């Protein structure tokens, strides 16, 4: 007689693991990151590295404080994903201490004080970004012009000194270096009563989005399609975000193209594309039922457009995602799928 250890079924090793999911997300972000670095210089790479370091530091600290074994959680790559998503939202020359604060808010407040991986109600990256956006609106609006419009490209050394020491290269000031984003420009000019064709004549606009921004958004979409293909994410959320954006922007644009921006303009500027594929698809803080996910994505799109149109910020993706995060448990509760063999209305 030979004895064997026993365990519950199923016995086959699962094909996926959390770390694999997170690694796929990071991989899918690469085209977007590359486009970002191409148009806005190496600052974004520095910010990603910086944010990852801070995020892992806070993660290790919080795991230690909570008395949780650190090894499986530090290796799950969820902190680097949070950090990268945050770093892609901020201007590349944002001072280091703002990133530190943002990561503290993201990892300590939004993630671990809610119970750590899997228990957070709000998307940590968006909490981090929204916190510093509210606290330091000026610093977070100082975007560089994209490469084709830049008068002077900043080197790696200049970037580091700007981020860590706040020193800009000699002869340059923020007033000359920074440039309004396309959404800023749109907002400002629209408030001054300019028509859409006039606004679009501004060099910050590209073919259908912002100059440079449209390529970055394209990079995110490419990565998102990769995630979809690898079955890391499902189609519901991106389809709902993008579909709702188009549905909500086409009628006003058709009604009066002089006042309302072209739908693609909305899709390919700001953070909407990043949100559609990478932020709103965050499993932890989103919906779990198919119908819930559709509503969740549509809500993100609607709130983003509302904030863009009427709100105090040029882009409202972070706030839209956070509000919908809060609504996600309710949406899940309201949209349970009908189990096999149960009556349709029940």
């Amino acid at each position, binding site marked *: 007689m030979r004895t064997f250890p*026993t365990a519950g079924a199923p*016995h*086959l090793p699962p094909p996926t693991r959390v770390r694999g999911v997170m690694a796929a997300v990071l991989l899918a972000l690469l085209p977007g990151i590359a486009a970002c670095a191409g148009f806005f210089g190496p600052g974004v790479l520095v910010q990603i590295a910086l944010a990852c370091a801070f995020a892992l530091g806070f993660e290790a600290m919080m795991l230690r404080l909570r008395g949780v074994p650190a090894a499986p959680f530090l290796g799950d790559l969820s902190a680097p994903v949070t950090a990268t998503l945050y770093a892609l939202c901020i201007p590349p020359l944002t001072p280091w201490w703002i990133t530190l604060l943002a990561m503290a808010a993201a990892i300590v407040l939004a993630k671990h004080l809610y119970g750590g991986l899997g228990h957070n109600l709000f998307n940590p990256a968006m909490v981090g970004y929204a916190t510093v956006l509210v606290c330091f609106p000026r610093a977070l609006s100082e975007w560089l012009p994209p490469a084709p419009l830049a008068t002077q490209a900043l080197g790696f050394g200049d970037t580091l000194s700007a981020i860590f020491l706040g020193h800009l290269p000699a002869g340059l000031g923020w007033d000359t270096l920074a440039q309004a984003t396309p959404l800023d420009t749109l907002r400002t000019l629209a408030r001054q009563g300019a028509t859409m064709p006039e606004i679009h004549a501004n060099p910050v606009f590209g073919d259908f989005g912002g100059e440079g921004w449209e390529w970055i958004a394209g990079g995110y979409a490419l990565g998102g399609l990769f995630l979809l293909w690898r079955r890391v994410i499902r189609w519901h959320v991106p389809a709902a975000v993008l579909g709702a954006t188009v549905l909500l922007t086409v009628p006003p644009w058709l009604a009066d193209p002089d006042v309302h921006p072209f739908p693609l303009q909305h899709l390919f500027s700001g953070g909407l594309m990043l949100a559609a594929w990478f932020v709103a698809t965050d499993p932890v803080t989103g919906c779990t039922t198919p119908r819930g996910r559709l509503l969740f994505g549509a809500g993100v799109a609607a709130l983003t457009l509302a904030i863009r149109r009427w709100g105090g910020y040029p882009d409202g993706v972070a706030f839209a995602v956070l509000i919908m995060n809060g609504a996600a448990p309710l949406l899940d509760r309201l949209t349970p799928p009908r189990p096999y063999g149960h009556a349709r209305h029940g």
Partner: protein
Amino acid sequence: MRIHRFHGGMRLDLRKQAALARPIRPCPLPPQLAIPLAARADMAARAVVAPGRRVRRGEVIGRIEGAHGTTVHASTSGTVLAVEARPLADADARAGPCVVIEPDGADDEQRLPPIEDWRDAPRAALLERLRETGIVGLGGGAFPSAAKLAGAQPTLIVNGAECEPYVACDEALLRERAEEVVAGAALLAHVLGAARTFIAVEEAMPQALAALESALHAAPFEGAALAAVPTRYPEGGERQLIQALTGREVPSGGLPQDLGIVCHNVATAAAAWRAVARGEALTARIVTVTGAGVVEPGNFEVRLGTPLAWLVEQAGGYTARAARLLAGGPMTGVALPHDDVPASAATHCVLVLAEHDLRDAAPELPCIRCAECARVCPARLQPLQLLADLRADDTAEARAHALADCIECGLCAYACPSHIPLVDWFRRGKAELRAQAAARANADAARERYRAREARLAREREERLQRSAARRAELAAAQAPTPPISKDAVLAAIARGRARKRVPPPGGESGGDA
């Protein structure tokens, strides 16, 4: 014909080739057989033989009476050594009653008279034959087939889709004995009075499908149709197969019979045909012995009661990598603590997995709510929600979320990137639900007894009052004084009882019966 979709499911790596490389081999008789009297945990047969008795193959050794009645048969000729509890191929190798037989090697067989003209035989006679030959479901359920065939139903599904990885006994049977399966399907359809019969196999079984086609061509029968369903686990699950073939869902808590459908496994159909047309009792079944842990995987025709250790030996023994022994497939199979258990009618696969084929023992991570479990769930449940309910010990909420509809297919735990043992949770939760239902039934029965008792006490009180009133009237008439009741005798008895706790008292004095 149109094949419908069912929710969830996954394409799994089938790994059936190793077992299908050779034809079905007969497993030689072991030195000792322990034939389980209970292939299902909920029904055990009563032994009808005593130790020392010589039996022939096919002789009845155990019997279950009643509506779900069936018989258990000696699987070879020999001497009954004992009727005793032996560990079974069960979750904890729990012991169950077995008839232990020492084969004499002659293997002489006792058969019932063949019913050649079964197409003209009355249903009752055929049902009786299936009962008396011990035919039970060979797909793993081991439910008495006669009980399932008792009522007439319009649709019969003969299930040859066994899409759990590794398990290949049905495919081997279909490749080599398709004509028996087709004849069995015709027989079952006749017994059932079914107008439609689906013989369902997987798309991934072209050889089996071809064999069935030619068998059906040679012996066609009314209403028969072959159906190749996509290989997507758990396509072979009864409820999923019904949905794939008919587009209808078996109601929650109901049976396929509620839709006018009866499902039988292909091996059951073949065994039923042998029982009727040849008079053979169920004494053997085809078992897949496979996995990286056995040297020579294959399908074996195994006498019921053969120890798994002997069976694995016939497959060349264990390899050095053998790490886990399963009765059943890798998704739903039961891990056995040792191999000294007999094969029963429900044992369709003996799987020995190597370490690298197993879930790692690394600690699970928290649920990240990715809802992959919900996507793959064929019962369209929200396993992540059920997990949250059960972790909070909230069985009421879990019941509301249809925990009872979980079919324990194992896909949720397999798909979970956090490696949470969801099925373990759900099995435990379902056991808890059953315990609660039992407790509820007990409480309801207790309430009835309580009410009956209250009513009885009230009636007795009333009668006593009437009696004493009558007596008083009598006494008042007779003017006789009543002697006072002495309590001394009672107190003395109590004192005696307390003083001599372990010594039975010679007999208590009056305790004052009410």
